[in-house]
């Protein structure tokens, strides 16, 4: 198993209702989630805004510390590991963000953006690895000396993917990575990601509010609603016979190319 998650709970302090003295009340965002991600699987995590899908992603990468429950990554319990203890593991799980502009440091060239983390983790042949990462995501080599503001949205997102890939991780979490792109760039980035996952045998979790994107890329789908799992099924099963009422609602909200056609 890549991830084994058991009864995962996460709360934030509610500063809006903090009493003048004393601790603020807690708001529970994740309410006891349990699921597994087998190796090599592509898991779609869907849900409306406020459903807790991004919080779940951040907890899985331990950018947030869970309040209770356990997260095991490749058999290792990372639930309460300190930042120091996590550092050697960080190379193995990578993340790609929604907004490709804000997720690249505007002061670094593409080359530095990709090479920095490689050097940090003491990897060899950094120059070759940067070149091959650019190659894999379909960017020409001379892009290495460009700054993020000189790239288009789709190209930036490719750089984001190249940064994650170059570290040769076991797992990548993609958080809404195509929602900021226009439709043709979306298709290109999705095709690229699907192909890379196949070629490299990585495990991928794909957070999205867009079910048509999830259907195309993912093998399994996890539906979140108000911090709880309402359905977890194989993609085909979910789209053909959605069981939970909330899933049916989500499916009904997808705009179809032909308004008279139904998902069948």
């Amino acid at each position: 198993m890549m991830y084994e998650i058991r009864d995962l709970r996460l709360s934030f302090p509610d500063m809006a209702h903090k009493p003048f003295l004393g601790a603020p009340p807690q708001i529970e965002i994740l309410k006891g989630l349990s699921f597994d991600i087998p190796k090599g699987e592509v898991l779609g995590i869907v849900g409306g805004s406020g459903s807790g899908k991004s919080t779940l992603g951040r907890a899985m990468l331990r950018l947030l510390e869970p309040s209770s429950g356990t997260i095991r990554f490749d058999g290792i319990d990372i639930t309460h590991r300190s930042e120091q203890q996590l550092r050697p593991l960080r190379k193995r799980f990578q993340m790609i963000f929604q907004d490709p502009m804000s997720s690249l440091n505007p002061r670094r060239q593409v080359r530095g953006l990709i090479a920095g983390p490689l050097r940090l983790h003491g990897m060899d042949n950094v120059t070759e690895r940067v070149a091959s990462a650019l190659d894999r995501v379909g960017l020409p080599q001379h892009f290495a000396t460009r700054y993020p503001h000189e790239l288009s949205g789709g190209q930036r997102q490719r750089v984001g993917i190249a940064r994650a890939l170059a570290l040769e991780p076991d797992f990548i979490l993609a958080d809404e990575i195509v929602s900021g792109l226009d439709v043709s760039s979306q298709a290109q980035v999705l095709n690229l990601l699907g192909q890379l996952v196949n070629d490299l045998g990585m495990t991928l979790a794909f957070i999205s509010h867009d079910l048509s994107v999830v259907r195309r890329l993912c093998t399994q789908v996890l539906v979140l609603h108000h911090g709880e799992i309402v359905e977890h099924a194989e993609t085909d099963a979910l789209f053909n016979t959605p069981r939970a009422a909330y899933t049916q609602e989500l499916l009904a909200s997808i705009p179809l190319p032909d308004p008279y056609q139904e998902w069948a």
Partner: protein
Amino acid sequence: MIFLRALLTRLLTMAITLFGVAVVVFFLIRVVPGNPIAMMLPPGATEEDIARLQALYGFDKSLLQQFLIWSGDVLRGDFGTSISLRQPVSELVLGRLPATLELSLFALLIAIALGGLMAFLGTLYRHSAAEAAVDVTTGTALSVPDFLWALVLILLFGVLWPVFSISGRVSPSQAFEFTTDFYIIEAFLRLRFDVVAHLLSRSFMPALALAIPLAAIIAQLLKQSLKETMHLDYVTLARTKGYSETWVILREALPNAVLPTLTLIGVQFTFLIGGTVIIERLFSYEGLGNMAIDAVINRDLPLIQGIVILFAALFTVINLVVDMLYVVLNPKLRHA
């Protein structure tokens, strides 16, 4: 080409600014009460003596005539002769400028080091008691003006626990022969680090007094910008790549957060130089500011004019340097 034109525009604006300053200072110090001639003569001088001296210094002519003569001389590089010290103003002023520059730059370095450190610590320990401590410290440092800090430092480290010198730029027992007026820089270049240490320890108190309020402003603004930058995706992403928090703050967030602080330092540095006038007096530091106060007390009109114009020139040059630094530090501006 665009850069060159911008530079030329700026130089022209500088010239106009300096002319404006010259007009204001020239007429202002002539309409306020006080007569330089009266300060020179002993009590009981005759009317004739006064008239003769006034003619000698040109004070018998009309204000406009005086201004035309003076500005003509200034354009030729002659700032006149000091009435109280009887030496050329340009010589006096340029002789004192290095002392004030060294003091101001030293204060600036202290302010950047202290302010930067506070901002870094406040960001590293954000949302904790340590950040609150940083806020309280900077708030206090900011709400007390530099000359009061000077008095506090004199009391603490000059009187109660006398570890630092509180008087003068060089100890009278210092045997080192300086060939320029940039004492610290010269000693540094001649590799006499013992002399550098001596000079730094003597100007540390006045420099610190000047630096404390500026350090506080730097700390507050930089911490604010750093904390905003720490929320950005690429900073979070750097953390997921496994970079340490210190690295993330200093290498990812700082370069993108520093620009507003840089502008602020540019503006505040001119205020800091203005502050040297009182601080140099309090610490008997032989700089321009100290000379300015003597010049005002003695109604030494040519000297006051020279000092004010030099200060004005200094401020405009600093603003120019800050603007150019801005272009150098921001890759977006370079490529646009």
